[in-house]
């Protein structure tokens, strides 16, 4: 493996981070807050680390798959480390563990926080928190590939490592165009939401930071009460719409808007995704009505927002779902496991795999009746190969296994079972809030330090779809050529 090439690409990723740190420091400087020096110093240190490999290592024409995997994982880890710097330097509630938790939670678009008082943070640091969501939203490498032209030569290998196989299916273009589509949809949705939120009465800073968090399906808010702070139905409606859009495959959104395609309406995955969320909202509304809220409109309002927020892995909140009745909580857990469609910024197992699993079950039932029949699994007129199907089922098992093991560790550390399980589900799916003591109106500050490290591990595993990070950490990966 050519480590110098890996360092060069990681350097470019760090430079992008340094740019956002610098923008945050400018905001801090204009506002005259205390985060100016921490952000400026962080941007300089990260920038120097990013620029240094570029001085020595010249651009390489092609990279191998193994190098690609190493670049992607190392870039995520390096970015997460870079992200801790302004937090540590600012101080407050941030020790290294807390800063690492906040940084990983930001980049992986999880949105879980250790902060007991978010509003005490200076404006520059709040912007940086939101920016980490936005950088990590479509994937750090994808972002860099789309922005830096010189990296497009290696784009195919890198984007294949970063994008999951099921996400690539809906892109019928070459890598370059795919990246351009992703970036256009990403930036376009962010701009549209910023304008919409601003028109609904949010100030421009909150509108930008909340748009970053929505489109990246992150969930970091600038307010302690999250979206509940605004107590505004129009704001909630705008966020619901953009959360739903951010959960749909970006390729489908692009082809619908720019190519006049109607695939988005025909896609079985999108249909299932919307139907599941609508069903979830209806069930939760009736479960909450009278038990929690005397008014049907309020029950619908809170159910719609919370279920969409969890079901798209965003994690914003306008109510405390940890005090909801059992059925509503089970639905929250289900959506935190499933999340939205592949090819979006969402985390979790993904609706695509649930559809695949359902089709595989149907196929198996048919085979029981007709053992010699040749039955293929189709999704949107595409035949799903048996190895992809098997990988999907295997991923589901590994994912649930990971959730189970991490829950055991947290319970062993003294965290109660509901908080442990829901917390692990929420972090692995990059959702954000769980239930119990880590609910939508609480935070992760009370989790023991080791528990926080376990949770950041699950965030990264969930974001990199498990296999990449596991492979990177295996000794064999470094031994074999």
């Amino acid at each position, binding site marked *: 493996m050519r*480590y*110098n090439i890996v*360092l060069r690409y990681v350097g470019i990723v760090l430079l992008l981070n340094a740019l956002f740190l610098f923008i945050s420091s400018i905001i801090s400087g204009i506002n005259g807050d205390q985060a100016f*020096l*921490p952000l400026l*110093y962080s941007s*300089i*240190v990260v920038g*120097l*680390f990013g*620029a*240094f*490999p570029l*001085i*020595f*290592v*010249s651009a390489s024409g092609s990279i191998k798959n193994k190098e690609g995997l190493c670049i992607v994982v190392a870039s995520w880890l390096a970015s997460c480390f870079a992200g801790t*710097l302004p937090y*540590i*330097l*600012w*101080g*407050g509630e941030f020790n290294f563990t807390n800063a690492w938790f906040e940084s990983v939670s930001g980049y992986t678009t999880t949105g879980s926080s250790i902060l007991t008082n978010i509003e005490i943070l200076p404006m520059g640091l709040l912007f940086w928190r939101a920016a980490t969501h936005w950088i990590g939203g479509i994937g750090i490498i994808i972002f860099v590939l789309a922005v830096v032209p010189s990296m497009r030569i290696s784009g195919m290998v890198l984007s294949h490592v970063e994008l999951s196989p099921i996400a690539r299916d809906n892109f019928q273009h070459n890598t370059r165009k795919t990246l351009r589509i992703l970036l256009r949809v990403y930036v376009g949705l962010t701009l549209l939401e910023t304008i919409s939120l601003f028109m609904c009465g949010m100030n421009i800073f909150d509108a930008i930071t909340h748009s970053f968090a929505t489109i990246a399906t992150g969930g970091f808010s600038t307010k302690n009460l999250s979206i509940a702070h605004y107590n505004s139905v129009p704001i909630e409606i705008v966020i619901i719409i953009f959360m739903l859009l951010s959960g749909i495959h970006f390729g489908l959104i692009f082809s619908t808007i720019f190519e006049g395609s109607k695939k988005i309406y025909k896609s079985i995955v999108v249909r299932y995704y919307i139907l599941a969320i609508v069903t979830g909202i209806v069930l939760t509304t009736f479960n909450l009505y009278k038990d929690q809220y005397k008014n049907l409109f309020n029950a619908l309002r809170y159910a719609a927002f919370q279920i969409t927020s969890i079901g798209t892995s965003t994690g914003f909140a306008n109510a405390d779902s940890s005090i909801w009745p059992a059925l509503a909580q089970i639905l929250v857990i289900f959506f935190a496991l499933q999340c939205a469609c592949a090819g979006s910024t969402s985390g979790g197992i993904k609706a695509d795999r649930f559809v695949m699993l359902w089709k595989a079950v149907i196929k198996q039932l048919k085979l029981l009746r007709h053992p010699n029949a040749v039955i293929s699994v189709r999704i949107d007129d595409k035949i799903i190969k048996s190895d992809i199907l098997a990988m999907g089922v295997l991923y589901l098992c590994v994912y649930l296994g990971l959730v189970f093991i991490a829950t055991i560790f947290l319970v062993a550390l003294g965290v109660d079972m509901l908080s442990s399980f829901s917390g692990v589900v929420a972090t692995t799916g990059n959702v954000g809030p769980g239930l119990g003591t880590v609910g939508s109106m609480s935070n992760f500050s009370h989790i023991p330090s080791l528990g926080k490290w376990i949770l950041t591990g699950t965030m990264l595993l969930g974001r990199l779809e498990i296999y990449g990070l596991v492979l990177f950490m295996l000794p064999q990966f470094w031994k074999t050529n």
Partner: protein
Amino acid sequence: MRLRLKIFSGFLILTLMLIIAGAWTIYELKNMGSSVQAILDDNYKSIIAAKVMIEALEREDSGILLLMLGQWSEGREIITAADNSFKKGLEIAANNITIPGEQSYIETIRSKYQIYKEIWERPIVDTHKQGDLNWYLEIAHESFLDVQSSVNELMSYNDQFMFDTASNLQNKAKRSLMPGVVAIISALVFTFLFNYFVNYYFVSPIVRITKSIQRFSKDRVPFDVRIETNDEIYDLAESINNLCLVTESRANKQ
């Protein structure tokens, strides 16, 4: 990029990191020093002034009791001295308003003290007030307690602010420490990186060139060293390659 510039850039980056961290640490330490000074100058001075006022008030109260017992000269002497002392304390506090809202506390003390002063300025000895315990408890002592509680409020307000500033100092100490810690860790990582690049791009090619020259001079194996970079080492390899070719062709001619 040329060799000299590459090495220079490595050291420049390292130096930059350390200088910036050092400058920031100095800035934060200076800030810390200012905060300590602010505690001493602003809050502590007001607290001392409040204590002086409370002491003076208590002496005035004793003076009133002496007047009630008919000891006019002793009572007046104590009250006059205490009044001067109170005024001095109030003056110090009034000239040391450093916290928002402190002014209103001073104004309250001033107005309440004026009421209290009016009570003991009027004659007590040889009037119905002399020996009248009810008058003392209901009028004089009540007013004394009123002023005292206002002075206490001013002291608590300054106490709280001093506590907050001291708490901030803890955070400032951490802030002044962190750039140094980050710079040390960054410098370590950077040194490791720099060492890797120096080995990969400078030492390793030189070793390869040396070995290839040795093979050429010993067994006439053609000089073949590929240099990826466009710097002096590349020029050196090219020159040696040309030299070997010339030497080889001359040897063939002979």
